[in-house]
């Protein structure tokens, strides 16, 4: 493994801890995590329920802040930021993809893809052009005027991926993206992620409990009880 240049590191966690309070009783969920994610990599965070992966996902997605330790996103220390600044960074740097797609049912596909750009204050004309480009990228260019209810699950997730890409984020953060899909569609979606990662160099962090997907990742972080149990890279796979 070639020594990573600093500018290549997108995400760096340093002794990251998260403790919830159950009444007056502290419950540690994340007990000191250290890892880095480099630009262009496809990282899988794997763990059973209760391993702390949801909490880690929320922290990586800046919906939650760590109790102690550091989370650096492109060398910005997240814990020092205000709520508004977090929202701005979330908007620009992170592309969320949810298990249940979370599309807005009353908006068209085009409008759904545009939502993050709305919050990024992108002018309407540019938004529309970008939405079309992204829809074509996920092979839904012909369905821009449709609504999510007219689409299959796989197509919905493709819309969600297009939406996540709309502000050119630093990385995609996918939460069990194939969890609500049948096996065949799931594979299609994973192939799409793969293609984006390989051809466009999109950085992807995927949180899942499904060990069957591990072959897709070039870095796997396995969590158990709030600690990294195993961390391995499938080096050479793409190099």
């Amino acid at each position: 493994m070639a020594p990573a240049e600093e500018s290549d590191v997108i995400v760096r966690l340093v002794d990251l801890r998260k403790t919830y309070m159950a009444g007056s009783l502290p419950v540690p969920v994340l007990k000191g995590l250290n890892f880095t994610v480099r630009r262009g990599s496809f990282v899988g965070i794997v763990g059973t329920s209760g391993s702390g992966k949801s909490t880690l996902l929320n922290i990586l997605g800046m919906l939650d802040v760590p109790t102690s330790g550091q989370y650096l996103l492109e060398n910005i220390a997240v814990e020092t930021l205000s709520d508004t600044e977090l929202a701005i960074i979330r908007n620009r740097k992170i592309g969320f993809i949810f298990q249940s797609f979370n599309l807005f049912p009353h908006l068209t596909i085009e409008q759904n893809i545009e939502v993050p750009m709305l919050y990024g204050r992108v002018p309407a004309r540019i938004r529309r052009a970008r939405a079309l480009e992204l829809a074509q990228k996920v092979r839904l260019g012909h369905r821009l005027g449709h609504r999510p209810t007219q689409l299959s699950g796989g197509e919905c997730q493709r819309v969600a991926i297009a939406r996540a890409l709309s502000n050119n984020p630093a990385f995609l953060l996918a939460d069990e993206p194939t969890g609500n899909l049948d096996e065949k569609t799931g594979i299609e979606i994973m192939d799409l992620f793969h293609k984006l990662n390989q051809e466009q160099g999109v950085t992807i962090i995927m949180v899942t409990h499904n060990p069957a997907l591990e072959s897709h990742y070039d870095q796997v972080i396995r969590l158990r009880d709030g600690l990294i149990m195993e961390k391995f890279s499938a080096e050479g796979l793409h190099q």
Partner: protein
Amino acid sequence: MMLPRDLLQLSLHNLLLHKVRSILTSLGVIFGVGSVIAMLAISEGAKRKALSQIEAMGIDKILVYAKKPSVEGTGENAEETGTTERYGLTSRDLVHIRQMDNVERVTLMHDTRQKVRKGIDRMDLKLVAVGYRFLLDSNSRIEQGRWLSPADYKQQSMVCVIGQNVKRKLFNLGQTDIVGSVLRIGQQVFTIVGILHNDNGTQYPELGSPNDMILIPTTTSDAVFGSYSFTMFGRQTRVTLVDYDLFIVTTHEIMHIDDTSKRISAYLQKTHDKVRDWDVLVPLDLLKQREATQNIFTIVMSSIASISLIVGGIGIMNIMLASVYERRKEIGTRRALGAQKSDILVQFLIETVTLTSLGGMLGVVMGIGISQLITLYADMPTVYSIWSIVASLLISSLVGVIFGTYPAWKAAQQNPITVLRAE
């Protein structure tokens, strides 16, 4: 924060999604604003009507009038004899009042107390002797023919001008040769020279509207009737002696009208030996009083109406709170995609304010409709001012801000982690 246009579009889009719900939600505000507008229109209409009646008597005028003293009075008057009754304003009063400061002129009115008949039917009309300036001072106009001329006064001509109701009551509809025809009253015959019209609703105390009067020159009246009038009471003849029934006092300075009326009262009090056979009426005072009571009425009525606005606002708040709960997953998703708390807050606030503002507009339309119906069917004048419409619209938007802030704040405070997990 989102671009304002996008934010507005987003909020309106959400309202259009639930058209029926949006309308039902704003129903409270619609009715609230509607009733406020209708209430203000009705009370403003009533006020205008009352004020114009008072104003028609002249705001620079003081009316001094004779009043028949009550029988259980002090007993100092000639009532005791049972045959002659003397009261009212005298020539001495006239001379004195004419000399007062701030009095520009005094126009006389004297009820001749002659019975006016049509055939054998007694009509409710008065034969009144008036001064030359009466036409001007009573705010009337000549509809046909002419007013009594100075020559008529000089020559004590047997001419009269009739009010428009007199024309209606004494003549047939469509009769055109009224001016120039004659009117027989008692033993006297008067030539009608003109028809007078008073469209201000002027009502003189004790004498009523000029429209119900047959007007003759004071000089003629003095010559043919004098100040005495005779009334039959069973087998007894009662004599009533009243010099003048009413002085229309025109003042120079409205500012000092109170002072002048007080001095007139003081003078009459002194010279009439404490017999209350007179009274003073200042239309301006009446106007002020009426205005004050009307304003209180307006305030009370619109306060009651605005309670329904508050109730409407609370209704909207409830529905918006329910809507926040229902849409918490949408809120969570928006937050994850980069919406700031302020984006969510403003989105929900715009939704509520739009609801109440649209409700306000519909309410204005409804209020105008209601007041039109009232004018049409209840024959009450209604006046809606631009002011009340603008105020209602502003207030309904304000209701949106007041009752929308809490739900919007609540929406912005939703924790994205929890609401995204809730399925």
